[in-house]
């Protein structure tokens, strides 16, 4: 029991690509931590990165991460804080190379090692996998991937903690992965520190819950916190979560002293429920965690103890995140003012639809919302009152070919002079036409992915 009483601190520094750029700096400078995990990926993110890589083969990862490391690399090396991130997106090698360059600029050459994890990218193997009978059926619709094969732009397996653990064993100070499971960025270091094996299911499940609490940054420490939100202190300097984990998996969620936000039973519970499916069966590559086993003790002083967590053995499958081209879309907005703001917006929408119809344009979908009235609560908002001070008309279209969407974007501005009155808010120009990269979740046997994972640790 040499680990008795030992605690490993894993701090969260980014909850998504675009999160508070100063948060990881505060985590490193604000007090003792052992690991900094930075989560940059979401279902939508992989598609965006894929679009960027299609335009520029050197892109396709979170560039924010590289400029961040240029700032904090020396402090991390000095304090022994090891960084684990999935910033690599669809181009982890490009990310790791840029990181090494940033490390040299930051003056850590010869003192730091970068670990690169590759092999989650299945794109080059896709046809042989399909040929071998892996149908990669859509997890919701059941459709086989061959239906959209020629439109597939990227395919990445959600990989587990094993390559992260290996990179840590090889002495990596910073580890860059592609589509690592978000939670593995937290429980990977714990498996390494405490020597948890794959059959230590309760401990790993606890690490998964810790990872789930970490993976959305301040969303567990007072950010986007619905309960008594008006009382959350100092959100301007909100502290991101830190999990202090023991060898048995039980942990405390906290944040640095003096930082803003709060850690309470309620703030942690809200995050636990975020993006939750069946709570008894939270599937990750390394374990199935049972979220109905979670026990929370609010110890006060921004400390919530989390314990009692149980898990079950992992499945033989990994989830695959596939992005495919699915047409084009655009959204246009105009603002209508009192009196009769909503009636004017609706009239403008009718005029717009009639013009699009006369032009012979056909869309797979066209959607009208009144921002300020029904865009979040739909029909539950009821009929808008006549004295609404203002409302924003928001119209979106989606189609297979770009041309009709493009033409739609040219039909918004004319409404300012040719439609109902009291309209403004067009300073932003024509709506942008966006290519849709749709998400296709599927399962694949882990045995066809894991032998291809490569861990490469190099001195900066």
């Amino acid at each position, binding site marked *: 029991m040499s680990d008795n009483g030992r605690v490993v601190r894993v701090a969260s520094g980014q909850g998504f690509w675009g999160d508070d750029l100063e948060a990881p700096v505060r985590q490193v400078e604000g007090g003792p931590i052992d690991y900094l995990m930075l989560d940059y990926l979401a279902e939508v993110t992989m598609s965006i990165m894929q679009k960027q890589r299609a335009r520029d083969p050197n892109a396709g990862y979170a560039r924010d991460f590289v400029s961040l490391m240029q700032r904090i690399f020396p402090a991390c090396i000095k304090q022994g804080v090891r960084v684990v991130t999935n910033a690599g997106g669809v181009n982890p090698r490009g990310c790791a190379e840029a990181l090494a360059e940033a490390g040299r600029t930051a003056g850590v050459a010869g003192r730091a090692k970068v670990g690169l994890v590759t092999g989650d990218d299945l794109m080059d193997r896709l046809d042989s996998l399909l040929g071998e009978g892996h149908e990669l059926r859509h997890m919701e619709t059941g459709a086989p991937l061959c239906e959209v094969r020629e439109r597939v732009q990227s395919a990445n397996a959600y990989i587990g903690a094993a390559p992260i653990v290996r990179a840590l064993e090889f002495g990596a100070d910073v580890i860059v992965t592609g589509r690592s499971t978000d939670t593995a960025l937290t429980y990977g270091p714990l498996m390494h520190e405490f020597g948890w094996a794959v059959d230590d299911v309760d401990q790993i499940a606890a690490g998964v819950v810790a990872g789930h609490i970490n993976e959305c940054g301040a969303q567990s420490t007072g950010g986007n916190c619905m*309960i008594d939100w*008006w009382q959350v202190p100092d959100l301007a300097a909100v502290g991101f979560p830190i999990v202090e984990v023991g060898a048995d998996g039980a942990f405390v969620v906290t944040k640095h002293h003096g930082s803003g936000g709060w850690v309470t039973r309620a703030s942690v519970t809200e995050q636990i429920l975020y993006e939750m499916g069946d709570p008894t069966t939270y599937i990750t590559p390394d374990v199935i965690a049972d979220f109905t086993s979670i026990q929370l003790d609010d110890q006060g002083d921004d400390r919530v103890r989390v314990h009692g967590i149980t898990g079950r053995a992992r499945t033989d499958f990994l989830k695959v995140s596939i992005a495919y081209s699915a047409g084009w879309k655009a959204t246009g907005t105009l603002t209508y003012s009192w009196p009769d703001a909503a009636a004017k917006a609706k009239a403008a929408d009718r005029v717009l639809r009639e013009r699009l119809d006369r032009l012979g344009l056909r869309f797979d979908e066209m959607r009208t919302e009144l921002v300020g009235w029904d865009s979040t609560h739909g029909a539950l908002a009821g009929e808008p009152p006549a004295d609404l001070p203002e409302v924003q008309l928001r119209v979106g279209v989606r189609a297979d070919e770009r041309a009709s969407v493009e033409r739609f974007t040219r039909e918004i501005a004319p409404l300012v002079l040719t439609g109902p009155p009291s309209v403004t808010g067009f300073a932003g120009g024509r709506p942008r036409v966006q290519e849709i990269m749709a998400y296709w979740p599927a399962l694949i046997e882990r045995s066809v992915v894991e032998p291809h994972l490569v861990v490469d640790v190099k001195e900066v």
Partner: protein
Amino acid sequence: MARVQLVHVAHTRSGDKGDTANVGVIAYDSEHYDLLCSQLTADRVKAHFGSMVRGDVERFELPNLGALNFLLHGALGGGGTMSLMNDAQGKVFSTALLRIEIEVPDEVARAVQGRGRMPADGAMRRSERTP
């Protein structure tokens, strides 16, 4: 018995998985968890959302957290990048559920009055924090 809006009894958090929105409902007071269980059936939640949810509604119980989790299938206009909705990722979908009215004993209705809404004197007041 009295009818109160859910906003006074529970707080919520929502997110997305593809075209499915999840709505987590957490009782402010864990003693009210059983009320949530009996009042917020999957059928009632499905009926509340009406045409906003095209597919099924599933309900899961987390008594350990005093919470329910609902999966609303076909709620996000295709989801993620496909959706034309302002709230394409269902970030605030859960707040639409806070409008639903549930039946509670009169003393509960009195006890929860005003809970879940910002007091008129706003940030100046520091009311009790849920432990």
